[in-house]
């Protein structure tokens, strides 16, 4: 492991000078997580399994603390895992359209494997929330696959009753992403 005390201090100093939101590094026994929060304070999290290279506390604007490796809740990390039960109800989605009939509710499914994005860009409001009324053609989400951004649209008019995948989560082709109560159902 080459990450010694001096090199950790260089990263801290660079973070103080830069205008980056986050640095998160893991190498060998060292995990270093620096987060600039919205109110201008910084959060530092260092895990050194060898416990020999802790930097001094209170250095510059950063406050490195020896702590558990848990990621601070400030990051917009994806939460939740895909519901396998829901996915297994539609093992083979029709290739022609992203809608599968599931009783009175309709599902919007992923047209391809990819990354599920609920909003057009980070920080923007989601395309569709629970309770929203949608029309055929309403964009529900983006499924990103290999740098292609596929807009997934509703096929029937109705109301969103459930969002089935977490933002930024990897989804499979045919995996249900939303449940919609069709108009009149």
């Amino acid at each position: 492991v080459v990450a010694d005390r001096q090199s950790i201090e260089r990263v801290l100093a660079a973070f103080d000078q830069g205008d980056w939101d986050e640095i998160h590094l893991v190498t060998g026994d060292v995990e270093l997580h620096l987060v600039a929060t919205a109110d201008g304070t910084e959060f530092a999290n260092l895990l050194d399994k060898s416990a020999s290279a802790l930097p001094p506390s209170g250095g510059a604007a950063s406050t490195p603390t020896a702590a558990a490796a848990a990621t601070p809740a400030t990051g917009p990390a994806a939460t939740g895992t895909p519901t396998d039960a829901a996915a297994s109800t539609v093992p083979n989605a029709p290739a022609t359209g992203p809608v599968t009939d599931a009783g009175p509710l309709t599902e919007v499914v992923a047209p391809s494997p990819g990354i599920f994005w609920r909003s057009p860009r980070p920080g923007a409001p989601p395309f569709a929330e629970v309770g929203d009324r949608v029309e055929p053609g309403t964009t529900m989400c983006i499924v990103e696959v290999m740098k292609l951004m596929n807009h997934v649209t509703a096929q029937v008019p109705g109301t969103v009753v459930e969002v089935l995948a977490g933002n930024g989560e990897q989804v499979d082709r045919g995996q249900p992403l939303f449940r919609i109560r069709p108009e009149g159902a």
Partner: protein
Amino acid sequence: VLKRVLVANRGEIALRVIRACFDEGVRSVLTVSEADRDSLPARAADEVVVVGPAAAARSYLNVGSVIGAALLTGCDGLHPGYGFLSERPELAEACERHGVRFIGPPADTIRRGGDKIAARELARSLGIPVGAGSGSVADAQAAAAVAAEVGYPVLLKAAAGGGGRGMLRVDAPGELADAVGRASAEALAAFGDGRLYVEHYVADARHVEVQVLADMQGNVVHLGDRDCSYQRRYQKLVEEAPATAVPAGLRARIADAAVTLMRALDYVGAGTVEFLVDSRAGTFSFLEVNTRVQVEHPVTEMVTGVDIVREQLRIAAGEALSVKQEDVRFDGHAIEFRVNAEAPLDGFAPSPGLITTWVPPTGSSVRTDTHCYPGYRVPAHYDSLLAKLICHAPARDEALALAGRALDAFHVEGVDTTLPLHRALVRHPDVLAHRANTRWVEQVFLPGWARASQEKHP
């Protein structure tokens, strides 16, 4: 001499840079996202730093994490590869500020070369032909005035652009206003800069580019040209060197123009100048500068014997170029095929997933640059390039014949690939006769191939 280089990329180019480090006796430290922890380059590198989650915006595109990784592991050099942060002046600046050698040109050169409008102006001032067109256009009205002057069809291009994003072809005045809006929005989303310029669209053109190397001592040499006319949606599919379809006199002028432009940019490192060649008129015009190593650099390596990535490492260490212009010799013909995880008969739908069979071809003049192996899971997070197959032979027809056999011997299962497309393309009479232009793949080849495939497998 550099001691320890951070390889700030992934995929085949990461492996390519790691091998060049090995050859130069330099230790390599690779940045990986959480999705790439078990990749082939991660196994090949001397050390690995996880720089964030799978999403590239928070890992490979996070300047703070990348520069932090270099500082944490004590790297004295940083190779950005292509794509990701390779042409972001912010990374070159951060390297400079923190005492890490950026393996590429200075930030100011990246800025001047990367701004397409500024680069066009520079080329024009040096007497290098630029296509009929404009500087930055403020709005649809200004674009319409330029388009009327240079004549339709026109191409709208992003000032900060690349990779075809923010680029739209407009065939008639009625479509222009809408296209300006869309192209500008796309450019703004992709590059944070919605400025556009307008160029006359040359219908029968070849894409010819010149590979340049420049050191800190002021030596600038070119390693000849490449013909990258086989494209789909402005994405290159097949590249070859040298550009033998273009008359020799014209090629010499193009190479001179490339060297002149790179000198004026105070260029350092490996870079490429791209041109459009109007085959019928026998003229050429400057397109853009790429301030990084390119995907297709191997075809130049095969015909010149110069290892471009090793030269990059030596240049960054302050060494003089190992070749003078008069030493550069061209030997035979090389062709590269991009094997992408895409289904070419299904609208080129991306095809991530588990590779169950992976058998690349072998042979003394057959080179495969790849990070794939049997059992590798191709992530959905990144681009679709799986491998580059490069074939080298004394003459072009022999290289094509060799490529046909090598493509037949390349077996991949589990994901869809562009291999079937290449197998058909390499045997097409227009390719054998060297007749293609930049529209040929989309207008001639793909429709015919799709028809033939349907007849064979209805």
